[in-house]
């Protein structure tokens, strides 16, 4: 499977370095290595979801308890989470560190992903969620650390878009 193990390792290491100890996830192809790393790590609590919006509540509960968390999801999972993001995370100032696989953009071969790709960034902008497109493995440690810092200081959602250039090796 040409999902980048190298990039996945860099992302996971950066999450650990930022103190993330709970990850919620719904499997998607580009996230397989990250989910396995979380599963195999005795220091990490992995919560496998039925639907991504549950992750907003789980991250909120973890935050209230003082546990740093992150959400791993596909961009369609972000779309499925929007009510929770607005009516919980924004309403109650919950920091959500969202790592979103950016399907449906340049290079996408699966027709079913293409609509979600087109609306991901416009929706992030409409919601006022700060985001950064991670395109190179070299940028991963700094940008994940910065995203976590902004998330923690602003007490609001922050997104990192995991692009095809970062996650897929062809």
């Amino acid at each position: 499977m040409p999902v980048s193990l190298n990039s996945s390792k860099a992302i996971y290491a950066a999450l650990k370095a930022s103190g993330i100890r709970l990850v919620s996830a719904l499997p998607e192809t580009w996230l397989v290595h990250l989910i396995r790393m979380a599963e195999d790590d005795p220091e990490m609590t992995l919560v496998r979801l039925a639907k991504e919006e549950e992750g907003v509540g789980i991250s909120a509960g973890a935050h209230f308890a003082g546990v740093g968390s992150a959400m791993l999801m596909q961009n369609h999972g972000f779309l499925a989470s929007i009510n929770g993001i607005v009516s919980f995370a924004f309403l109650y100032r919950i920091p959500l560190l969202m790592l979103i696989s950016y399907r449906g953009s340049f290079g996408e071969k699966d027709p079913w992903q293409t609509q979600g790709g087109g609306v991901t960034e416009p929706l992030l902008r409409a919601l006022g969620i700060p985001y950064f497109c991670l395109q190179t493995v070299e940028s991963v440690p700094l940008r994940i650390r910065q995203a976590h810092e902004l998330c923690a200081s602003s007490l609001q959602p922050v997104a990192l878009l995991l692009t095809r250039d970062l996650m897929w090796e062809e």
Partner: protein
Amino acid sequence: MLRLDCLRSIYSQLEKCVVVTIMGAIAAELQSIGHRPNFFYLQHAMGLASSTGLGLALSLPEQTVVVLDGDGSVLMNLGTFSTMARYRPRNLLHIVFDNESLLSVGGFPTATATGTDLAQIAKAAGVPRTATVTDCDAFVVAITDALAAKTLTTIVAKVEASGPAKYVTDLTLLENRFEFSRYLRTLKKPLR
């Protein structure tokens, strides 16, 4: 059975727990009995109170977490039963007040009014302990047993579709949220 009577009858037990409620009548009624810093009222995001309880229970294994849910909310997130059951934290008690109605928006019947059984859904999803109760004495016994069992439990309490005259209280959302999180972070030992 009145939800307010149920809440009064277990209030002394809730005092020792980390409590998450849904919006509307449950939040207003619990506050009318007495707000505490270990109570968080999720005044929107319907369906996510149980997910919040799961996040709390996994992050605070020494505490007992009680979620006060409702039929309308839980029907919006039935997947929560399978996620709770998957991790089945021993310190999570999920109480669903089922009035078969979306009371706060005019009393429209929910699917539990036409036969959907939330305790059976919870059981089929893998929640190890489930029960449905229809009177207050049975409710108190079910809650007391569940807290003693230290096993993930869903209790469905069938209650009348009635609530307080108004839902907005003088406790602001953010005041509640920051008081709650600050309080949890001071906890060194279980409340119980």
